[in-house]
């Protein structure tokens, strides 16, 4: 079968859509991280706006609710001077039976320049990217279980901020990995940036063996998974995605896989604790840890705005 060119890159290898971290060259990732550093400084200025996306219309298309992610994209777009339109799809024409592609076509007719899309189905942003006009860019804000590339980028930005050298790190990702688009994006980013040891930690029902194909070590024992880790990424236990008997209870999960101070002590003494949010206190993470000295959960949010500004400005400047 013919392998099509990665739809995210133009013929010059420049990023025109951000759909997944998988398949992006290391240089592209590094450039976005470096650019994010610039925007982080911008966000400390009194005037936090730069005119890079002035005159552009950014449409937030969230087929799946998320006030947090949508808000950070909106802030990022506005700081780039873009016009932002938020579309609450659940209550709009799609609910009346309009197909995804018809929705996109209608919005494109309103001169949308960029779509930020969150959808419950893996792969939906690819379908959209295939059908938009050449000058329109698509950013995936999360598709099903497949990818959440801006989260992956801000996670590695956070790790770079605190740890500097990726090639010496042990990173543990803990929790509901099989349903997690964040985990998949993190794994792709970490492997591309050269992290030598990535552990996927959780029970067999949530951490399938064929994850090893993505370049991780599967650990079903929490202690073994956490031991000596430099970075621990805790994932939210996704109740709404679980169907049919994957876990007996949140309580039992916390007992085996929740991050408590005792378990954290098994990691390196300067380990950082991350979480994509929102956190479930007492389910995957103990309050003492979430609020403790190792936690960088709040800085992640700050970095997230800068990373999204970097992604949008990088993409907007490249032609299809």
């Amino acid at each position, binding site marked *: *079968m013919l392998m099509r060119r990665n739809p995210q890159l133009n013929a010059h290898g420049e990023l025109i859509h951000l759909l997944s971290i998988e398949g992006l060259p290391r240089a592209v990732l590094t450039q976005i991280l470096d650019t994010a550093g610039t925007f982080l400084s911008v966000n400390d200025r009194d005037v936090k706006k730069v005119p890079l996306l002035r005159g552009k219309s950014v449409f937030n298309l969230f087929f799946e609710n998320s006030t947090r992610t949508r808000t950070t994209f909106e802030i990022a777009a506005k700081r780039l001077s873009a016009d932002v339109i938020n579309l609450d799809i659940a209550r709009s024409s799609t609910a009346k039976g309009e197909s995804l592609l018809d929705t996109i076509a209608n919005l494109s007719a309103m001169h949308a320049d960029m779509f930020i899309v969150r959808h419950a189905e893996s792969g939906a942003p690819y379908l959209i990217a295939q059908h938009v006009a050449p000058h329109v860019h698509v950013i995936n804000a999360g598709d099903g*279980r497949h990818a959440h590339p801006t989260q992956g980028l801000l996670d590695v930005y956070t790790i770079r901020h605190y740890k500097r050298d990726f090639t010496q790190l042990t990173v543990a990702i803990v929790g509901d990995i099989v349903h997690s688009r964040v985990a998949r994006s993190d794994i792709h980013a970490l492997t591309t940036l050269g992290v030598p040891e990535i552990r996927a930690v959780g029970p067999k029902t949530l951490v399938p063996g064929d994850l090893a194909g*993505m370049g991780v070590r599967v650990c079903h024992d929490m202690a073994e998974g956490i031991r000596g880790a430099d970075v621990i990424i805790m994932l939210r236990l996704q109740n709404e995605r679980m169907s049919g008997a994957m876990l007996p209870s949140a309580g039992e999960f916390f007992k085996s896989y929740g991050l408590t101070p005792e378990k954290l002590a098994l990691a390196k003494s300067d380990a950082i604790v991350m979480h994509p949010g929102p956190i479930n206190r007492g389910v995957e993470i103990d309050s003492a840890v979430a609020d403790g000295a190792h936690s960088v959960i709040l800085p992640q949010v700050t970095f997230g705005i800068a990373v999204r500004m970097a992604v949008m400005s990088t993409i907007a400047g490249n032609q299809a």
Partner: protein
Amino acid sequence: MKILIHGGRIVCPATGRDEVADIAVASGRIVAIGKGVDFTPDRVLNATGLVVAPGLVDLAARLREPGQEHEGMLESELAAAAAGGVTSLVCPPDTDPVLDEPGLVEMLKFRARKLSRCRVFPLGALTRRLEGAALTEMAQLTEAGCVGFSQADAAITDTLVLQRALQYAATFGYTVWLRPNDGWLGQGVAAQGAVATRLGLSGVPVVAETVALATLFELVRVTGARVHLCRLSSAAGVAMLRTAKAVGLPVTADVSINSLHLTDVDIGYFNPDMRLVPPLRQGADRDALRAALADGSIDALVSDHDPVANDAKQLPFGEAEPGATGLELLLSLSLRWAQDSGLPLATALARITHDPVRVLGDALGSLASSAGRVVEGGVADLCLFDPAAEWAVAPERLASQGKHTPFAFASTGMALPGRVRATLVAGTVAYEAA
């Protein structure tokens, strides 16, 4: 009309015939085969350089009628069959309404007969509305023309009902056509494995097939029912099939052109044309299916044709309707498989002519003795094709209304071997290439 098919290479796997000779056709039958037959035809079909094979018998093709009459589905899909050299096809009962009433079956057969393009042999629903609860009137459905009974893709989860259905069918010697897929384990949009995990698609594990096969084989053993297994997809399933046949269970099986040629890697960037049931599995599974089709453990190759509409396909992968067009690709994909596997032409043809007829058995009635073979006195259902020609699959030029196929040249970059030049059904030219 009296037709002379002149100078073609007749390849008939059933009789072992492989020779250049003429065929005289009259009154819907083959009246003579030989070199220089004494016959005054109304028309001569020049078959020089072509293979003359029995008309193809496709054990799985969806016509979407009843249900989409207003779109002229029967007309277009039977035209597609004829363009693909298919002279007899079996269609599953998952129509709208479901084929669980004799009247619906009669109407379908009647409409198909009037079109004179391809013989249609419907499968009746095994349970009412395919709901897996109450049995259908199998005897009456058979009288109306059903050649067997099927659940299409709706698994029966109640094992007691399944056993009773098999027992009842066994009473009359009806064949039950079932896709081995456990109702609960079998939910998912792609095959479980590294690709599905990477793409974040819900996976169907192999055990969905093997658990269902284990249940079916046990029930066949105790009921004696004849079962035809539809669309095997895994190496493990193939292994179980071989064991079942070895101990003499009355089972047959088929595989689709899709599973025979493609794997989960072909999903690529969530290509909805790869959204298929059963889902595409891994390379080792494909290899096992090919080997089983080669040695006859799997009896037949089917197109699994389904003319899915554009609107239903251009959706995110998990929401896209599964299925692909296939009637016009069956011959070429059988030839390609045989070429890839180093098998003779006769084998490629056997799996789409003689062997499917064998699977249908008595259900074909009087046709059983001549369908799927080229014999004097038999029905003139013939497929004339150019084995040396290659063609690039261009969906918009297919006769079928289903334009979605994983084998489009734009996707594969590969031309397919074998081009149908003419198809005869009951001695009438049902299709002729321009």
